[in-house]
């Protein structure tokens, strides 16, 4: 009887409706759960680029405590991390290494550009060894301005990244 129900003509519609049912019943809650897991455990790569690393270190300190959002600087390898916080100026010597680090991370991965130097070159825009912004090297999700940004600003940037991840489709990477 099932064979009579599903004819080649209405197979598309049937599958489409099945897809809708699956999406509403499983995809949305599953996606919500997956995103919830990703948001509250963003692990940044342990790469210190330039002077903004001091304020990133201060953000991990007991007063500003970014660890309560799940952002712990993993001491292991970067194959377990999913966030790159580019802290400060990227020089021409560092740019290929940054690209290498970004390529070695598994999907899904996110990038926060911290500080004016990472966004547009900042104070050193006309130096001979500084890239004017890291947009040409890796794709950026959140820009955090400041020179250096206060730790609270960095935490606000992380929260913005969390909201962005909530809106993303989770199933593509599963």
């Amino acid at each position: 009887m099932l064979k009579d129900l599903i004819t080649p003509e209405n197979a598309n519609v049937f599958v489409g409706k099945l897809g809708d049912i699956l999406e509403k019943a499983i995809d949305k809650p599953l996606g919500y759960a997956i995103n919830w897991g990703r948001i509250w455990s963003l692990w940044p790569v342990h790469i210190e680029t330039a002077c903004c690393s001091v304020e990133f270190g201060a953000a991990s300190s007991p007063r500003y405590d970014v660890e309560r959002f799940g952002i712990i600087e993993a001491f292991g390898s970067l194959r377990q991390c999913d966030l790159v916080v580019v802290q400060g100026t990227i020089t021409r010597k560092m740019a290929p290494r940054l690209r290498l680090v970004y390529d070695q991370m598994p999907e899904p991965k996110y990038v926060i550009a911290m500080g004016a130097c990472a966004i547009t070159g900042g104070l050193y825009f006309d130096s001979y060894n500084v890239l004017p912004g890291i947009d040409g090297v890796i794709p950026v999700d959140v820009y955090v301005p400041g020179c250096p940004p206060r730790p609270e600003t960095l935490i606000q940037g992380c929260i913005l990244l969390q909201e962005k991840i909530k809106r993303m489709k989770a199933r593509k990477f599963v």
Partner: protein
Amino acid sequence: MMSTETASAEVKSEGKPTPAKKPTPAKKPEEKPIELPEFEKGLSDKITEKFGDKVEVAFVKEDRVRINVGSENVHDVAEFIRDEMNFDHVESVSGVDFPQDKEIEVVYHIGSYSDSSLSRQVLVLATRTQREENPIPGKDATKLPTLRDIFYSVEFHEREIFEMFGVFFEGHPDNRRLLLPEDWADLPPLRKDFDTRGR
């Protein structure tokens, strides 16, 4: 408060009157002969009496004595400074580019840790070498003898001057890039004809 005359730099020199209180200064204070600080004068005298006119004393100020030497004598002068005068390490080596004189000047700041009478003094030793229009670092005439066998502390400083100005140090075991990226193929950056604007 308006900015006043220089009073902090020449504290030790005698014979300088206090700034005149009357509105028209009849005689400017700089015209009187300024007496040089004694201890520093003693240091520069030791060098001039050994080397004569191969060295030139540029200035003798409080805690700073500057000696200008030609590039062929700088090795001997540095050896004398280390052996006879108890200076034992180099604090910094800087290069200055003078395109109008067509020369690059290399300045060594030499200090002493072991001799307590010299703990404030910094001896400034300056040499010059000629400069070329199209430099090929390492293979043109911009050369200087290295002071690494006399003062070991200049090792990384001379490497940096090699990459920033193109001055080749003969005798240095390792004339290599230090701070610039590995694929730098441009002019040495700290020269005056390397302009960062418009790049």
